[in-house]
């Protein structure tokens, strides 16, 4: 049993008073402070299922090819078995040359990638040059190692372009940072890897790469209950990133791929959809 002093519950929010701004005693909330840590695992307070059921479950993928990097994500957010949203944006636009994908806890990814964006901008203003993808991902890794064992859940990919080219990194809440050519993250990642590993080549053209990314996400959404919604596709090239597809419904994809396979059903489903 955790031995704690109940008065610590009141101290979750520490206001740091600085001498120079007396007026601003209600400062913007600072980075979260861990109240108490156990060595065994993440902090647990019994709040029932609802409180620990943050938005999880996803499929995201990214791969490097000759035209740059392709990122494809689904858009489903589930809280336990309830679908809280089918329109989530899992690619976070950090700045014009860096993108991050979201997997695991939505709030953790949103907050820390926004924190990274802030850091990148500050660096750019102070130093006159943009932060490299390697440095940006390393900065994020450093933060996550600091919060290790505190219960953060993030499996994100940082993809971007800098003076040395386009690079893809995978960052994890355990503090892992891997550079690589193909990554897929989330509950549907195994299905996406199956499709990706089958058809990936470095010298894909842009259209082929987009098609591969869409197909891989579609297959993951087809078999994984926690993935679904729409497919969003981004392309990173030497001038930054472009949004290739903002949202292709996976149900449309299902009937399109079925038709390609020659499965027309009784002819009506593909044409007259009830939804």
């Amino acid at each position, binding site marked *: 049993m955790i031995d704690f002093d109940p008065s610590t519950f009141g101290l*979750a929010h520490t206001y740091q008073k600085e001498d120079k701004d007396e007026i601003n005693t209600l400062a913007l909330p600072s980075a979260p402070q861990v109240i108490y840590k156990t060595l065994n695992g993440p902090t647990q307070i*019994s709040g029932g299922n609802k409180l620990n059921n*943050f938005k999880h479950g996803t499929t995201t993928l990214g791969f490097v090819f000759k035209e740059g990097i392709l990122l494809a994500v689904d858009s489903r957010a589930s809280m336990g078995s309830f679908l809280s949203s089918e329109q989530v944006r899992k690619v976070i636009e950090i700045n014009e040359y860096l993108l991050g994908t979201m997997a695991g*806890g939505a*709030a*953790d990814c949103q907050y820390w990638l926004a924190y990274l964006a802030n850091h990148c901008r500050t660096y750019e203003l102070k130093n006159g040059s943009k932060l490299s993808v390697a440095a940006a991902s390393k900065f994020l890794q450093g933060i996550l190692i600091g919060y290790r064992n505190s219960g953060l859940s993030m499996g994100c990919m940082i993809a971007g372009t800098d003076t040395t080219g386009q690079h893809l990194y995978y960052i994890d809440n355990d503090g892992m940072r891997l550079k690589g050519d193909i990554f897929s993250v989330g509950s549907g990642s195994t299905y996406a890897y199956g499709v990706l590993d089958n058809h990936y080549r470095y010298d894909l053209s842009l259209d082929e790469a987009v098609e591969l990314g869409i197909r891989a996400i579609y297959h993951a959404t087809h078999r994984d209950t926690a993935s679904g919604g729409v497919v969003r596709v981004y392309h990173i090239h030497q001038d930054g990133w472009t949004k290739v597809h903002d949202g292709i419904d996976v149900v449309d994809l299902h009937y399109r791929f079925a038709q390609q396979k020659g499965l027309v059903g009784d002819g009506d489903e593909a044409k007259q959809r009830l939804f």
Partner: protein
Amino acid sequence: MYIPVNDMLKHFKQDAPAMANITHKSDQWSPYHDNSGTVLAVGIPGAVIVAGDTRLSNGYNILSRDATKLSQLTDKCVLATAGQYADFIALRKFLQQRLQLYEFQNEVQASTETVAHLLSRELYSRRFFPYYTFNLLAGLDENNHGVVYGYDAIGSYDKMTYGVQGSGQELVVAVLDNQLKGYNKINKTIPQTREEILDIILDCFSCAAERDIHTGDNVEILIITAAGTERIVKPLRKD
């Protein structure tokens, strides 16, 4: 809760040593209580409609039939919260004070997008001891179109056209998906006017009150437009 063992029992043979100094996990004190209820918000061009029931409950007890879940933060936006009422009050207090300070410093009220971001940051600052609140921030954006931001307990947020939170969430959101987006409808008729949408919202709350024990008593509706705020209260089942 620690139940002291009667001294006499020491003289009896203890078969199961486990019965001596046990504190059951379920007896452990928790800072969280679910005061339940349902809130929803719908954004349409020109207005946003926010509604919440007014029942405050704790388990099987009704603590109040007249407790508002809505809080108007600026002229243009309203916070609707389901979950723990104490955390709603604390969160509302923080937001009201911080937004007042913003207005003093900037001589203009914060936009809905700004408030949405502020709320997300505040929720995340308590990442390791969360506010037990499931929020909807509904307001008018720069073009006076209605927008709704839906949050989870630790601050992840997304812009959406409508949102539901609370104990009746699963019941109500399926109805709204069908009525407002035409999902799974054969004759897709999407409501266009504010009156149609208000009717749908009242129906949703009646449905939720029928099937969810924590929703009922009254439904309070706020309609925010560029011209101002209108408040309607309608009765619901009180059982």
